[in-house]
Each structure stands twice: as C-alpha cells, then as structure tokens.
C-alpha cells in the first residue's frame, strides 16, 4: 500500500525571519522584508529593492559553527541553516536510523562566491577552494554533510519552480517506499548574476512589489532557504510524530510556450493544478486558500490569474506572499510550502501586501488582511523559466487516501 506523506518538521530563513515563528509573526503582522541591497555592492543597489537576509556571510558561518577553512557558499549556508532547523523541529535524533534522503534545489548554486572571486582565482590561490563550490550539487552535498545524512541526495534546478519539484520527488519516493524520511526544499542566495539577469529582462521593480495589482511593475528578488521533513506513515507511527500536515497532491507540467514568458491562458499552470487535484483526489472547491506564485510581474500574474479562473468555478481566498519575501527563486516553493502548512495548522489566510486595484483583465482580488479561516486544503503554485509549472496541495489531515 502506498504510504501517505506526512510533514513532520519545517525550517526556514528568509528576509522576514530566521525561524518559522518569526516568519509567521511577520506574515500576520503585515511586516515585509523588502529593503535596499546591503550585503554586496552593485551598481543597481539604489534602483532596486530586494528581500535580503540581513546577516553577513561571516555571521552565517558563526551561526552554523563552521571552521575557518570551510568552503560553504552563502547558498549552502542558508540551506544548511534551514535544513538543520527542520530536522530538529521534527524531533529526529538519528537522521540515518531509517532510509533517509535530501532533495534540495537551487538556481544560483555557488554563483555568489564565483562572481566575487572570478578574476581573483588565478593570482589568489587562497580563494581557489571555492572553485569546486560553484556547481549546484555541491550545495546539497554540503547540506547533507552538515546534517550528517548518508543516503539519497539529489538536486533539482527548474528555475523558480525548483523546490516544488524537490517536494514532489520526495513525496513520490515516500509514497512508493523508496525512502522513509526525506528532507526537501531549496536554497538560493542573492547574487549579482541574478540581479543583473532579471534586470536585463526588465522585470525588476524599483519599488515594493505589488502582486496582482493593475500597477504592478515587476518583482523584487529575494534570498531564502526552506526545508520540510517528509516521513512515511510507518515512521510517523513508530516515532509517535506530531504531523504538521500532509502532502496530498502534486502536479508538474510544462507550458511549452516560451523560454522565459508564460502563456496567455496559463496552460502549464492549469495543467499542473489539474494534475494536482487528480492526484489528491479532491475537487477544486475543497481548496480553502491558494498561495499563488504571484511574482508581481505583468506576465506572471496575468497568466496565473487566467489559470486560476480556468480551474476554479469560484477562485478561493488567495494571496501571494512575495511582497514579504521577494522572489526567492529556487527556494520560493519551499518558503511558500512552509507558509501553506502554517496556514493549515493555524487556520489563517496570509495577506497579499501592496494590493490596491484589481487588474483590468479580470476581477481577481487577493486577500489583503490576515483572516482566520478553517482550512482543509491549501494549494501552492510555482512557475519558472523554461515553462516549468508545479502545483502542490497540502492537507490538514491525511484522509485523502
């Protein structure tokens, strides 16, 4: 029999807090983490706003207790920090006492260090130790090592939908009995590379981002790491775990429309949501809250809005939390998975900040104040470059089987 997929621990570090509680407090107090860029110099520092974690790399090293000769990049440090929190929160003593795994995701990997030392490597051998930290898989191996994990380790990079796919793969492996326990999520640090990349695409906002608003000007990049611990029914029972929520359904589709833009009618998003409903065995009307991708770019919010209108007869309460955190790329879906689980656990719909006027194409109005509401199912969307569209459905109880 297929196992259900229980979520038994969560960890997060984002622009609105270094713990799950801090993140929750910021969300319900409408306290965003959008600011000017401070951790590295950029010509664009005064023209853009970002969701930056106000801790230097040195502070993160200290926080993690890393030795001086370590080769952790910022991406790895954020990841290790959040993943260790998740493992601790689950109450795990020995991570390897069952078949355990780590499925992480990142889009920049070690680019934040590569771009800093790129031209110094030749004449400064002391920095060369970071050369091998560039590739994406290195961050996952570092996190696994930091956790003391020995088992399945893999990394997914499907741009801004990455962490949703990490969660999806982990859920599938638990269901089918390939793993008993898996830490899933994503990590991405801010970097000059992504700041300039998104800048050339002209989708960065110089002000606070405004998801689903007619006047939205683009996204604020952010940085974060978030991880969930998924465990099988058997482990939950044996270890007497407190289950926070369940991964009830998931869907993955490709928009197959354009390398960077979403289709007019949100086809990929629609297909991903449709598949997730089928997998969860529920009807759209059972969803109490949608944590939207809602990047606040003109293209995403229009496309996603259309997809929501297509799949739902009546669009449920929805919001994008990116006005709090910025768009944290490969980590975004894990950050929002943590928020979705919090919404379910505590019966609350989080507000969509900076919304003033509905888009003229349709009358979709996000939730703008925190509202208490009994929730059974929460849906979370994540879409990325390359047409990668993913949907996750979380449930409060595991009765979907």
């Amino acid at each position, binding site marked *: 029999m297929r196992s259900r997929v229980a979520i038994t621990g969560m960890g997060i570090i984002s622009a609105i807090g270094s713990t799950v509680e801090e993140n929750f407090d910021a969300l319900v107090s409408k306290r965003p983490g959008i600011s000017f860029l401070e951790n590295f110099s950029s010509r664009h520092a005064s023209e853009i706003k970002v969701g930056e974690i106000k801790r230097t790399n040195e502070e993160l090293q200290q926080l993690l207790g890393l030795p001086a000769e370590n080769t952790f990049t910022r991406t790895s440090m954020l990841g290790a920090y959040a993943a260790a929190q998740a493992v601790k929160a689950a109450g795990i003593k020995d991570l390897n006492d069952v078949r355990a795994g780590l499925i992480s995701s990142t889009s920049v990997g070690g*680019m934040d260090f590569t771009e800093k030392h790129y031209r110094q490597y030749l004449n400064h051998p002391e920095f060369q130790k970071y*050369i091998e930290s560039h590739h994406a898989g290195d961050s996952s191996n570092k996190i696994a090592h930091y956790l003391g994990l020995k088992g399945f380790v*893999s990394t997914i990079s499907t741009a801004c939908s990455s962490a949703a796919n990490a969660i999806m793969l982990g859920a599938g492996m638990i269901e089918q009995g390939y793993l008993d326990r898996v830490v899933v999520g994503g990590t991405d640090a801010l970097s000059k*590379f992504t700041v*300039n990349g998104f800048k050339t695409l002209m989708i960065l906002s110089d002000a606070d981002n405004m998801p689903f608003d007619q006047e939205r000007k683009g996204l604020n990049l952010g940085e974060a790491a978030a991880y969930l611990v998924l465990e099988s029914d058997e482990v939950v029972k044996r270890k007497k775990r407190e289950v926070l929520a369940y991964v009830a359904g998931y869907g993955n589709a*490709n928009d197959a429309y354009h390398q*960077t833009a979403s289709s007019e009618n949100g086809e990929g998003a629609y297909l991903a949501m449709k598949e997730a409903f089928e997998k969860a065995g529920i009807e759209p009307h059972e969803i109490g809250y949608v944590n939207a991708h809602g990047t606040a770019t003109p293209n995403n919010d229009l496309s996603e809005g259309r997809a929501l209108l297509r799949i739902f007869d009546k669009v449920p309460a929805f919001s994008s939390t990116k006005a709090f955190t910025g768009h944290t790329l490969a980590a975004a879906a894990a950050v929002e998975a943590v928020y979705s689980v919090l919404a379910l656990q505590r019966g609350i719909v989080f507000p969509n900040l900076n919304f003033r006027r509905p888009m003229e194409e349709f009358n979709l109005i996000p939730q703008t104040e925190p509202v208490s509401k009994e929730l059974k199912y929460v849906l979370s969307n994540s879409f990325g470059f*390359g*047409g990668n569209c993913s949907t996750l459905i979380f449930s409060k109880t595991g009765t979907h089987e």
Partner: protein
Amino acid sequence: MSKCYINGLGSVTVQDPVFDVFEAQSQPLQSLNKAQQPSYKDLIAPAMSRRMGKGVKMGIYAADKALSEAQMHELQAVIVGTGLGCIEDSEKFLEAIIENDEQFLTPTAFIQSTHNTVAAQIALRLGCKAYNFTYVNGASSFESALFDGFMQLRHFGKQNVLIGGVDEIAPYTFSMFEMVGKVKQGGEEINFKQPATRGIPLGEGAHFFALSNEKKESSYAEVCDVLLFNAFKEDEETAVKNFLQRSGLDFDAIDVVVFGVNADVWQQPFYNKVSTFFPKTAQAYYQHVSAGYDTASAYGLRLAAEILYRGQYPETVQYNEVRPQKLQNILLINQGGGTDFSFVLVKSC
C-alpha cells in the same frame, strides 16, 4: 508494476559522430576534449542555432536521435541531468557583468544560462506539456534523471519517458579546473588502469534515452534498478550486495561490471576497492572513450545497453582480463570526487 526498457539512444561525444566502439579504436584523449559536433542544420534553423548554447544543441540532437530510434511520439516526461548546466552562457553573462561593470547587458546569455534550458528547449520543440525535470547533482545528475524516469514508468502510469545527461565545456571553467588540479595538465600521461597523476581528461557530450514500459523487438535492455547516494552508510561491499539483493541477484550473477574510472589517482582507490568484489567478473571502463565530465556515466549506460543488445563485448572497453561467459546482467558503478555514488543495474531483454 511496469518495467523500464531502453528503446532508443542518441549521443554526441568527443569521438567522431560515426565512431562505433564495437568496430574501432577510439581517439586517444587529451587533457581537454571537445565534442565532435554533428551537423545541426536539419534539426535547428541556422538563426536559432547561432544563438543556442552548445549543450542545448547537443541535447536536442541526442534527444531527437533517441526518440526517432524508438519511434516514440507521445512523451509523458522529459527529464534531464546536467552537472554544470549551460556553463558557457553562464560564463558569458558573468564576464559581461564584470567587464562592463553591470552595464549594457543583454538578456540572451542569462536566459540560456538557466540549468533547465535543455529540458525546456526539448519541451518547446516537441510542444510537450508533460512532466519536465532537470537534475543538477554533480556526478549523479544523470542517475537522478534515470531514477526519476524509472520511477515514473514503474509507479506513475507513464508509458514513454525521455531522459538524458548533458554537459558542456567552457573555457574559463576549464582553466579554473586546471588551477585546482581537477583536470589533467597538458601533456600529462592519461592512464585509466594505473593512474599516477591527479585530474581527469575533461570532456563534454550528451546522451539521451527513450525509455518505455513497452518491450519491443528493438529494445536494448531493461533498467532493473537505480540507486544514488552521497556517502556509504555501511561498507562498500555490503552496499553493493544489498543493492543486488533487491533484484534477487548476487555478485556472481553479474556478467559485466562497468566502472566510471576517470584516470584520476585521487579517485582510483574507490574503484580499486570495488573491483576486488568482482575478481572473476568481466570489468569494463568507458571514460577513455567518452572523456570525463559529470554526466559521462550516461555514456556508460549507453555502452551497457549496446553490449546487451548486440551480445558483444568489445575488447577496447575491457578493464581486466576476464571475458564474460554470457551477457545478461550488467552493473554500473560510478562516483565523482568521492561522493555522488551510483549503482545502476541493467539486464538483457
């Protein structure tokens, strides 16, 4: 539970596009080995081809070959593994940022630098709206994609899945690898059997596989099991034994064991140790043909599939003196830099 058959193959390698390992000796490797690019003009419009990254083109080409060989039309998944992704465009964009102090940048290189570009371009070309994943986990990037494809066929009701591994070389990345001894220095001896120096002969390439739950006359092999992990929980011998046991096999049941040896003296001890578990088994290697890169192990799978399909064991891939008595079960063992371990079991069909 559905099975997983390899029904089509496609590759771009550092060898001549018509090179056949069963017929000829491969060209000897250097420290840097660029892929021999096939002609893309029948596949990709010239204007588009000029803009496209090398890895993307190699991926599209190999995918097309695999799909047409399998006569596969309806795909339910496109899954790609790549260690470094589109590193050429990453370098291009990063150098532009540095040289122009973050000014006058154009988005093309940035767009194409994203790790999932190959899988995305394949989906776009085929109009394939199905499941689409990209794995980026160093030396087990390809095995991650293979495992996912395997799982999709076995448990998620899919019939046809395209998986592949692709990596490209970029100039500055190569020079960084030189600085840290990750690649062979120019002129250094490249010895796969008794390496004496650090570093690998670096290569690039793409290998794609059309996987299906349907066995055909033309099926190459069946993928029976895939396992990847970062570190050994028990000793190496127990780990291999347990893996084989999952398929009801023991060491003796393996006809050929294929090692991802890469001529690096630092990475050799692992293979030396593992080879002692198979003293009477035919041992094969392949990176003297493919050269070394994160997803070179995809060529290892290709080789295993072809050995099983043709029922031949080419001398040029023999790592020890043992000739196999039959060609039924092949085990592939790989790692990268002392982590990213993988075991893949394939059998004839």
